């Protein structure tokens, strides 16, 4: 099976959406943060244990042993159950454990993937789990394989600001419907996206780079189709690109 960083899921409604898989580095950093969290919890519990030593040293020692064991095993299980697939480290690194079919995680899946850390963590520093992650097509460690889970990247995608791309201005291209039709036919999605991204980010560019970038995009579009003079004369390269994008995405 081919290795991929994207998992495509088809819903019963017939819609396909994709989930970005988290890489080993993000997962390792999340684990480091979680390890630090476990240490902090243990330090806090130790303070409690010190207090109970006044009553019984034996009881305090037993409580320390049991609490370390329960925290080290239970931390991942409880966090992933409560936060629906996330621990503190995973939240900070914007990764999430999900069912391989994109469904809600079941408690037994969480338990199995966490208990199989025993084998993923051997011989040191999650070597087995890391290798499995690198070799498996969906970046799964052994615990993920057994529990049918994946770890996805959880980057929040902001709502795009369409008004910035399409101000309601006169577009000389629209006087020539055959050109609009030809543009839609010949300009690829990738090319259109480059133009949209350039328009979206235009204010982040310095003036010279902005002029240069739009000149190059305009030159490329002008190579694809020949335009009558009245369409391109008297407008800037940036306005020309804006008109092309407008023609591509509006009626």
């Amino acid at each position, binding site marked *: 099976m081919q290795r991929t960083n994207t998992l495509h899921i088809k819903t019963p409604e017939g819609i396909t*959406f994709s989930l970005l898989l988290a890489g080993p580095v993000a997962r390792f950093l999340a684990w480091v943060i979680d390890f630090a969290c476990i240490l902090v919890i243990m330090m806090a519990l130790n303070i409690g244990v010190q207090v109970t030593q006044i009553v019984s040293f034996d009881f305090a020692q037993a409580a320390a042993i049991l609490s370390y064991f329960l925290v080290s095993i239970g931390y991942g299980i409880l966090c992933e159950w409560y936060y629906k697939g996330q621990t503190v480290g995973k939240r900070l690194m914007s990764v999430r454990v999900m069912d391989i079919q994109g469904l809600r995680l079941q408690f037994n899946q969480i*338990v199995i993937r966490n*208990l199989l850390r*025993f084998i993923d963590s051997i011989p040191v520093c999650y070597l087995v789990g890391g290798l499995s992650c690198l070799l498996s097509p969906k970046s799964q460690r052994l615990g993920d394989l057994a529990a049918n889970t994946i770890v996805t990247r959880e980057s929040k995608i902001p709502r*795009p600001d*369409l008004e910035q791309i399409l101000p309601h201005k006169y577009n000389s291209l629209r006087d020539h419907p055959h050109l609009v039709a030809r543009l839609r036919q010949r300009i690829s*999605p990738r090319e259109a996206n480059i133009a949209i991204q350039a328009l979206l980010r235009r204010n982040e560019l310095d003036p010279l780079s902005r002029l240069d970038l739009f000149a190059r995009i305009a030159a490329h579009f002008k190579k694809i189709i020949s335009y009558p003079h009245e369409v391109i004369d008297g407008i800037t390269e940036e306005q020309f690109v804006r008109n092309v994008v407008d023609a591509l995405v509006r009626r």
Partner: protein
Amino acid sequence: MIIDLQRFIDEEKKYWAELESVLDRLERDPLKKMNLSELKRFHYLYQRTSSGLARVMGLSAETEIRRYLESLVGHAYAEVHELREKSRRFSPLRWFFEVFPQTVRQHMRAFILALGITAFGFAIGGVAISIDKEAKSIILPFSHLQVDPSERVAYEEKTGAIKDRLAGKKATFSAFLMTHNTRVSLFTFAMGFTWGIGTVILLFYNGVILGAVALDFFHAGQSTFLLGWLLPHGAIEIPAIILAGQAGFVLAGALIGWGRRISFKKRLRTVAPELVTLLCGLALMLVWAGIVEAFFSQYHAPVIPYDAKIIFGAMELIALILFFGFSGKSKERPHAKD
């Protein structure tokens, strides 16, 4: 196919924003339960956004909006769709007295295999120690088992009558035993991922140690001490480790999938709840065994008569066999054996 993107977004963006806010609320409060009208609205928003995503898919130029809608649909999908059967409200008593023994019986072949490998190891350990006394230092890596059994029994009985060796340390010792044995058991289970090879090795080695200790004490004429010492906690602890081996073999069986026409994912999905049941059950057994070992097993005659300890251990073993053999049997659903 959308022709007028601007109009489409103007019409749809309020629904996307509403779905986004519902998802944010669910994220902030994972235990939040929606009422029926909220659920209906959520479902409607999900379907409307999915439909929007389908339309944007046809529009080649707009990747940003597609990515945004995919992210919304992906999050909502996990909340809306759950095709697997929801288990009824969890009842600890029902789980312990019905589900746990039923699960052990359901995978009886894996249990017998684990028991057989332990027994085989026991026999090999016993034979090795009977043939060659020197093998003791290799087979038994524990210093307290290296001494002559008769000397040890004499020492334990003499010092035990004078002072309590574990005074002020019983709870600590008990906690250590619980966590150590649980770790070993979880590791035995996890090694099932090596197609069961690791589980076989661990069970066999455990059996070898047990056999070597048992025959060492038997040859020294200290069988009564041995039974009094091991039976009270071993009657529960050893079966718990065999259950860990059983869980490891169930996992290995699902990985290998001999003669089963269902997919790898489906096999693992099927056994997952059963594995968790076995592991939680054996963890409880090891808690009990840890308490018995620290507070009872380590006290020998004349403090506690051997007969009392052996009877206690034998009763535990009988109760355990009856528990796994019959508990929850009347409510058992017919299912495929492993």
